């Protein structure tokens, strides 16, 4: 395919039939004389369709540049490219509308510039980010996109052009609560019905309640409470409510027990909430036995 004067832009689209809507997935500018660049964003989530992570997790951006000639003339387009970092928060309305594809389809006017840096040689580098910079009052609940772009600079015979752009979706940290059973209560009869609420469950996660004897502590493989497990395999975070009923069999002995709500994600296991309570179901009969002889 011939390259047109000034370069050729290739665009990758996907089209939904009903309603007929198109989404831009990626685009590349190719020219005979401009430098080139590739970006790759890696997170701890192996999901392949869209790079994604959580508001408290790190991510890495790998850039590779080529076609640059040695020298550092800030006006020479063949001497340097510029890497830009922007962020963009999702509004809750975006999720309600199901606009979860994000990426290049979002309005770039809403993007917030964070930083930029010059790359002056043909090289591969890795940028490490401990957490996202997406704006939000509650740092655990931010959601949106981190977008990285590489641009060439314009010159006498070439135009400044986007060489590559990649984005990362960032989803909020889940939270949850256990209600129906209080801390430090003493249970003498059957286990009460308990309601588990979990919000912002990560798109690839399994959430469940477990019990184990003793006070709360990390890393315990307890007993899964029947009826508590929920698997989320979605493109956006989910909210779930589970009710525990007739779960006496999970507590075989009297003593101090801990019930905790956990969510397992590609980042590990997070405790969303817990309660510690005491169970004493032994019936003691105080009486005397006498005989008449």
């Amino acid at each position, binding site marked *: 395919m011939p390259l047109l004067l000034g370069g050729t832009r290739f665009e990758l689209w996907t089209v939904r039939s009903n309603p007929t809507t198109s989404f831009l997935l990626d685009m590349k500018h190719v020219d005979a004389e401009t430098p080139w660049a590739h970006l790759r964003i890696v997170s*701890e989530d192996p999901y392949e369709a869209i790079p994604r992570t959580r508001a408290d997790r790190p991510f890495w951006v790998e850039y590779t540049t080529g076609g640059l000639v040695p020298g550092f003339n800030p006006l020479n387009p063949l001497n340097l490219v510029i890497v830009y970092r922007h962020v963009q928060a999702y509004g809750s309305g975006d999720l309600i509308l199901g606009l979860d594809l994000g990426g290049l389809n979002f309005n*770039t006017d809403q993007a917030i510039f964070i930083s930029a*840096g010059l790359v002056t040689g043909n090289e591969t580098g890795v*940028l490490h980010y*401990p957490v996202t910079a997406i704006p939000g009052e509650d740092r655990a609940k931010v959601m949106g996109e981190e977008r990285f772009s590489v641009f060439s600079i314009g010159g006498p015979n070439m135009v400044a052009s986007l060489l590559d752009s990649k984005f990362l979706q960032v989803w909020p940290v889940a939270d949850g609560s256990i209600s129906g059973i209080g801390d430090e209560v003493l249970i003498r009869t059957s286990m009460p019905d308990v309601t588990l609420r979990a919000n912002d469950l990560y798109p690839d996660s399994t959430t469940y309640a477990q019990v184990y004897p003793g006070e709360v502590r*990390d890393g315990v493989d307890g007993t899964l409470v029947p009826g508590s497990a929920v698997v989320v395999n979605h493109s956006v975070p989910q909210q779930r409510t589970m009710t525990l009923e007739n779960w006496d069999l999970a507590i075989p002995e009297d003593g101090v027990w801990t019930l905790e709500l956990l969510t397992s994600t590609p980042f590990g296991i997070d405790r969303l909430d817990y309660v510690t309570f005491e169970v004493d179901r032994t019936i003691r009969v105080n009486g005397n036995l006498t005989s008449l002889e």
Partner: protein
Amino acid sequence: MKLEENRKFVSLTGGILGLGLLVLATLDASAQFNVASKKKKVFRDAHTHQSLVAHYKTSLDADPLRAMESPELDYDPVKEQKKPADLVEQSDIISFRGKSALIPKDAIVFVPERLSDRLKMEESSQIVGWSKFYNPNRSWIRTVEVSLAQVTGEEPLAQGMQEMMERSGKIVVATYKGGPITVLPYREPEETPKAFDPETQEELENETQENRNRALSDRGMPRSSDLLAVRDR
């Protein structure tokens, strides 16, 4: 230990563990880069705003792009760049028997009246690529291969094309190397500047003659007008 103290203790140990992991992560970023392939089994309390806010500020300050040579930014190219027009808006849709195809606008160069109702999106139809749509529908679609000059409107479509299209009774799609392509309307070439203007030409000739005479005189040779005068005598 009271339960409330227990919670604080777990939160504190979780925080210290998190900080330790952060230090480890920053020690060798390249080694961590392939972290996605490693199976992690970390157990902790879920982070909250309080546990993340300091981490966030440190992360902003340590942005590796800021450590690189900074460019002079008088504008933001991400915001300035023109977003590609929507693919659907740039396309005509052609449908038949549950299949539809997107064709670049103005690539359909002829539509007979009897087939005009096929230029729409059929409800619940499946969108397929051009070749998948065209091959089973050759009986009512015809393609004409065009040149890049015709595509850009610099050259008109071949003579007799219109007549051929009307005779065919089929929808005609312009293609370039087999793929449908937009064909811009033919533009008449703009008028070129006049090659010959008698007045301008006379001035130019006079000026040239003057220059020639001056050059001859400088070399001590007779001017052409003098030679003509001698001849006339």
